């Protein structure tokens, strides 16, 4: 088989013939289902956030605590990281030296860590103002929704490190390629969720 037919959404793999027929398809399909389940979780967190908007209980509310500028910079960083991951996926397919892939993954990782650093800084500022989750139902909902996304980004960063180690250990075997495709899906989902957070939490909180 020189060019196997893979029926899955996303970038087709070259050199996937090491896998059993259908394995790549089943693998990615299963991962899509997982992402769907994860998306349900975020949808519910958004719903909870919506119901708790008014429950500020005299603790600091959105107008006082949200910094649109910082959230905007975070948005730019995360969107750029999605772009670099997309470029990494293309490099995986066409660049046989692997160098481009590794460099772009490292850039993505750096952007992810930068995003997390800014987010932690935002949270620290809020804590310094006394805006802690035990003050009100609103702050509880905020600190459930936004840090859950942050935890996902943290998990994504760890996953990138694991994938760098796998590339070092195995080169680009079919399994590494599949795992990178799944990581890509995960990373892009986090971007989509963040856009929702930016709109629903930060834009609504500061402008609405």
């Amino acid at each position: 088989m020189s060019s196997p037919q893979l029926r899955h959404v996303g970038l087709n793999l070259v050199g996937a013939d090491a896998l059993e027929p259908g394995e790549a398809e089943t693998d990615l399909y299963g991962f899509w289902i997982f992402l769907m389940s994860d998306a349900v979780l975020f949808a519910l967190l958004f719903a909870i956030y919506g119901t708790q908007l008014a429950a500020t209980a005299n603790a600091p509310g959105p107008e006082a605590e949200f910094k649109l500028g910082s959230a905007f910079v975070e948005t730019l960083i995360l969107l750029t990281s999605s772009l670099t991951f997309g470029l990494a996926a293309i490099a995986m397919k066409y660049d046989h030296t692997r160098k481009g892939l590794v460099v772009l993954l490292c850039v993505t990782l750096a952007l992810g860590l930068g995003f997390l650093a800014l987010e932690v800084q935002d949270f620290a500022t809020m804590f310094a103002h006394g805006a802690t989750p035990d003050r009100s139902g609103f702050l509880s909902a905020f600190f459930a929704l936004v840090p859950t996304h942050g935890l996902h980004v943290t998990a994504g960063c760890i996953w990138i490190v694991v994938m760098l180690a796998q590339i070092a250990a195995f080169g680009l075997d079919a399994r590494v390629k599949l795992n990178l495709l799944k990581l890509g899906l995960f990373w892009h989902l986090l971007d989509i969720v963040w856009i929702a957070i930016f709109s629903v939490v930060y834009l609504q909180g500061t402008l609405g």
Partner: protein
Amino acid sequence: MSAETWYALFGRIDAKAFPFVRAWNNPTVSEFIGAFAGALVVVGAVALLSLMTWMRWWRPLFRDWLTSLDHKKIGIMYIVLAGVMLSRALVEAVLMRAQQSLAVNAPGIVAPEHFAQLFSTHGTIMIFFMAMPFLTGLFNYVVPLQIGARDVAFPLLNSISLMLTAGGAGLVMVSLAIGEFSTGGWSGYPPFTETAFQPGVGPDYWIWAITLSSLGTTLSGLNFAATIYKKRCPGLHLMRMPLFSWTALCTSILMIFAMPPLTLATAMLALDRYLGFHFFTNELGGNVMNYVNLFWLFGHPEVYILILPAFGVYSEVISAFSSKELYGYTSLVVATMVIGVLSFTVWLHHFFTMGQSADVNAAFGIATMTIAVPTGVKIYDWIWTMFRGEVRFTAPMLFSLAFIMTFVLGGLTGILLAIPPIDYMVHNTVFLVAHFHNMLIPGLLYGMIAGYMYWFPKAFGFRLSERWGKIAFACWLTGFYLAFMPLYVLGLAGMTRRSQALFEPDFRPWLLTAIVGALLLFGGLVSLFVQLWVSVRDREQNRVPIGDPWDARSLEWSIPAPPPEYNFALIPQVDRLDAFYWLKEREQAYTPAGPYSDIAMPKNSWVGPIVGLTATACAFGLVWHIWWMTILGFVALWAAVIARSFVRDTHRTIPAAEVAADDRRWREAAGATEGVPRQLEVTPANRGLAKIFPSEVTA
């Protein structure tokens, strides 16, 4: 040892955590019952470990079972887990019935706190650690065989799901010997389960046991959806799939969408309890309705997660024991999927009384009643399947018939409860308790037992005792009616549910009837164990090695019993519904076949047991605030998963010659065996080869 050192090492554990100490300090009957239950766990565990060591079973246990990724073995382990947990929760039910029948204007034998733990563990176990493992076990065993696959889509994930569920069940068992369980019921409503009202470990045990189970279930749902969508054998279009696999697919979809709300609800309750968040507290903007909505957003689809697999079993059993094609196959498929969709539109009927407007209640009440339509379609389809069929009243068939009658009755009381004004009258009474037991005992448990008896010969190669099967059936049927019909009466008379003591002497005759029923149900459980014992003892004369003892129709019966590890020596090609039956009618089911090729099967893996163990340690540490254990468990879990991703040698190959030899031997045996007519299928004449009736050949 200083108090700080103790806390760092053992967290909140102190002498009072042990029921034995509590019984010593406060020698009452209630405490003695608690200490006895705790002692049973400890003695049982020690006895089991000693037996394992004495018989040198450790190595085979791990090699053949716990590290196995074979879906058939994982299925059997799920069902064993369900059997153990069923036994505990049924004993608890008998104890609660005993308490209520004794406690009319009297204290009874169980203290209020203890009684509240009993109904909380009974519900939690029956739903999460009896019903869910039972149906997941049947999926595991049957679905890959029915769709002509060699394993599930993700065998390792399957093992992890099992071990997470077992870990959750383990936590509930440990709570008997160390600490206490929640008193907040199986639904764990805050604010009662918040620290303000229950500062102890009870709700924490509940939260983490449920969390482990719901994570395991989400992963199972994912796994079976991917398996059914992607691993069907060539030609097995969705509309040629046996109905049990259809219900498995629908259930898997429900699991994927319905488990996240539960995971989130328990996680948020945990944030309230551990970090002082205010999601569901009474003050500072907490809103308990968020919990109630999240819980029933899971809870109502969960009802169909429980019931649909049983519907699948009944479809298979009724068709096989009527020797007829399933009547209205398409309508059954459509009804299943319609129920799946509607199940997400009715969750509010669990809390009609909690303050929404009458219009909202009316909308959800009507939505609830519409579910009766597809369910009614199914009932008629099953009846028409039996019409003019060659019906044999075997034990699984008896359970199916009892289901049809009893479930319709429960459905009628469900229609009553779906009318908000009536719900206001009987809400929180034992009328509701009677109703949902009337749905779940026939709609789940009868189905699971029928499925267990129906597929047992496939899994182990010999039939179960028909005589003891019928005795068990008689107990489960009469026990159900005696135990729960009185509760309808009591509920209408105003008896509130979850009452530890009662003050109305007129209730007593009904309560005494109910305890007789509960004892009969216990007799049903004992009969199942006796049946297993007797059947294992007499296994030689009841062997069905050819694999088709019931003259059934779907692919799982087209292979030997028990099946080889790789299920199918040759992946079947299917071109119609009930393809195996069609081949049998043309006497082509056992003809020589080939060519054979090498088969790659997943190697055993320790990752499943390690994940289960570390996740349970993490959860136990969280319950008791033993933080080192929590962190260690969490880190070790992910270390194991990441380490596994570096393993490339995950399959082993079974050579074609070995496959060919086994398969040819089986086909020759089939040729040399005499087929059994249906009338004699419950006699030793049944060797697993059905006698063909050429007159039935159509076209």
